[in-house]
């Protein structure tokens, strides 16, 4: 069953930048570009540095495709697909997000299934 989960007020978003929300136990990074009426939600976990920091990265585009640069080691993740531009085998989860009546909501569907992706190389 899919369900929109209310997260925060539109005023809590940071224009042209990101914030992090806790949604059903998972960390979700939400980026907002009021000028373009665009909003994106991806996992907050950076698989490269293994830290929860993606919401603190800078956004922009690569050849027109919206992206986020990790604040740690500067890998780029496409905001629409979560795929890493430097290493297509690595990606972060992407979540449906909407603004409705001034409130920001994330869709719950696949939430519990998607755990943050870690690099294959992570030590065991």
């Amino acid at each position, binding site marked *: 069953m899919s369900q929109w989960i209310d997260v925060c007020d539109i005023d*809590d978003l940071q*224009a042209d930048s990101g*914030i992090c*929300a*806790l949604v059903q136990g998972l960390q979700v990074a939400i980026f907002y570009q009021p000028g373009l009426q665009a909003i994106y939600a991806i996992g907050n976990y950076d698989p490269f540095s293994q830290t929860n920091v993606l919401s603190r990265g800078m956004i922009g585009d*690569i050849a027109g495709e*919206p992206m986020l640069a990790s604040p740690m080691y500067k890998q780029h993740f496409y905001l629409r697909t979560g795929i890493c531009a430097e*290493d297509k085998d690595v990606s972060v989860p992407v979540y449906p997000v909407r603004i409705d009546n001034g409130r920001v909501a994330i869709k719950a569907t696949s939430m519990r299934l998607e755990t943050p992706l870690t690099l294959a190389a992570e030590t065991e």
Partner: protein
Amino acid sequence: MNTKQTLVVIGNGMVGQHFLAGLVNSTAKEQYRIVTFCEEPRAAYDRVHLSEYFAGKTAADLSLVADGFFEEHGIEIYLGDKAATIDRERKQVTSANGVVVDYDKLVLATGSYPFVPPVPGHERPQCLVYRTIEDLEAMKTAAAKSKVGVVIGGGLLGLEAAKALKDLGLDTHVVEFAPRLMAVQLDDGGGAMLKQKIEALDVKVHLNKNTTLIDDGVECLHKMNFADGAVLETDMILFSAGIRPRDDIARGCGLEVGPRGGIVIDNQCRTSDSNIYAIGECALWNGQIFGLVAPGYAMARCVVADLAGDVGSFTGADMSTKLKLMGVDVASIGDAHARTQGALVYTYQNGSSEIYKRLVVSQDKKRLLGAVLVGEASGYSTLLQYCLNGIELPDNPDALILPQRSDASVGLGPDALPASAQICSCYDVSKGSICSAIEAGCCSVGDLKAQTKAGTGCGGCSALLKSVLDSELTKLGVEVNTDICEHFPHTRQDLYNLVMVGEIKTFDELLEKHGKGLGCEVCKQAVGSILASYWNDYILEKQHIGLQDTNDTFLANIQKDGTYSVVPRIAGGEINPDMLIALGQVGKKYQLYTKITGGQRVDLFGARLEQLPVIWQELIDAGFESGHAYGKSLRTVKSCVGSSWCRYGVDDSVGLAIELENRYKGLRAPHKIKFAVSGCTRECAEAQGKDIGVIATENGWNLYVCGNGGMKPRHADLFATNLDKDTLIKYIDRILIFYIRTADRMQRTSVWMENMEGGLDYLKSVILDDRLGLGEQLEQQMQRVVETYQCEWKTTLADDNRLKRFRHFVNSEQGDDNVVFVEERGQIRPADPMERKHFKLIEEAA
């Protein structure tokens, strides 16, 4: 009087010329008068790229000899004259034109000739070979009169020749005696795939064809008759059935040659006569002829070393090749035929996209022995490096050729290669020498080619060369393209001027007027810094906040675990006990890791995002302010204790350091700026290692500029001497603003000055003599920055809206459960991933 010995070189082809070029750069040069015979009408040219002659390159373009080379080095060259005989008794060479030269040492570099099978009819008109510029001219003439062309021989060269015929507009055929193309390099599977691809390009391939007779054709000039009864009509024929070493002159004087030709040489490239060397395609080493240019070059280097009295040896060469034939990628590495005992083979074949790959791996699956790639050879460099350097293979070697993992993802990054790894085999250039060239200032593939010659042979290494270059440049923090990024076709300097001239105040405005797209972390930060330098607005204004990287956004330095460090300013490194205690109390209260930095201040580590405001509130209450450790801005002004205490001090270095630090604090720049002030020439503050260094003398202050430590230390230059304080500050104002206006992104002052035309002298003329008439403007701009200084932390703490950002979750008071500390030497440190897991397990169990 003439004590020089005579060295004669027979043959001025690729290898002969490489030998001469090496010789004139060696100490051996002085010992010899050098004479060379060149049979062809022109000195050495690039045979490897011969086919480009058809694409419009001229003989001059292909030349391998720099203008005036022979004259400059006093080399006597006999062009168009063939050495005919060698008299070893008399040590004399006689040429076809009758020139006689006595030699002490002789080098044979006669190359090889195309083998033409003795098929009856092979001497008919328009039956040609492919070796020299004259051959190509003959081909052009013949092709103009022809409709159909045949290449006999489906090896490397034959396929290249077929491409040439195709490009000349002929209906092209390749006739091969063996059952597959490129029989030497490829296995059956690879050969079959290659055939398919070549045929797709409308070149007809005939395998297993033994030509028995060439006679008159009906439709065309010739008719080729094959042993199996088939026939093929054609107007011209190119023989490319292999090469044979040109050893006739060696045979003539009784030097040892191999049973199938080739002048026998030892590991020093000496023939059976120790005064005579043989190098290149005419030489036979260990029963082997090398039909590639790289081994020939290696032999040439070996002889140069031997003549110079160094130890040189030639011990075989790698025969791996990568080709782009008619747009088809083909590569063969090492033991492609899996002849090594116990070798294991992995094959990947994709019929629909016509890709064939084969890996040959040692019995223990640890080493790569060989490989064949057809249709997709992007993995060539990586595989070659595995093979040549004996790098241990990943657990599943087949991953290296399987498609779902691209070559890039399993590729050995250039960083994985040892410094000894050979990047360019043509010129034997190691990764180490490429790195040194980059450190010495090469910053493009062009520079590297010029400097090291890497990549100027077969070109097969250029991709790897580029990746080494990029990786090294990145490590050195150098920008490659001068455009700042894809969003602005401008350099940082351009953007600065655009901001200044257009009075632009926001990133959006600049992007709209001069850029495209949405921007990225590169241009946003650069513009953020420019706007901050020029307008000195609070960097966390709404319109600027998206331009700041995490460090500037949170006014703290991010650490490996996502926590931050806190660095309050301690101007000049001077701190009283109360302040020290206050620092200690904050560190203790918030359980931060504390350390004295290399910049004479204290760093407090391990603050969580949500703790930063409270920590800073306490610090500010205690009288501290932001240390800007997070910004590309003034860091610290180091001081030594100076005349107040030190028995040698001649002036108050601490006082000046504090004054300078307070003047320039908060100033945003293309990179960080560091200062130091020493109280005497003993230089305890290391001022000559700083962007701005000041040293006290009996007569005033000496100013040093553009030094730094870090990755590439540079000693600062003395800029002006015996200055009074006001003049000193005036000069520093000017230098810094001039730097901010004209430097590239992430360029320290040292690199900025070194890249400036005119260098130090020019900078002096701008600052000291005010050559551009900018002095006053520069000072005014600095004054504005000084007057608008604000402690960013103070401003932030006063604004509830800003503080909203300092929490991990927008919708929860919780912290990040991924941040875990463990204790070490009585303080905290981030848990490593193993410890972190363990910690989480305990927590869950509890």
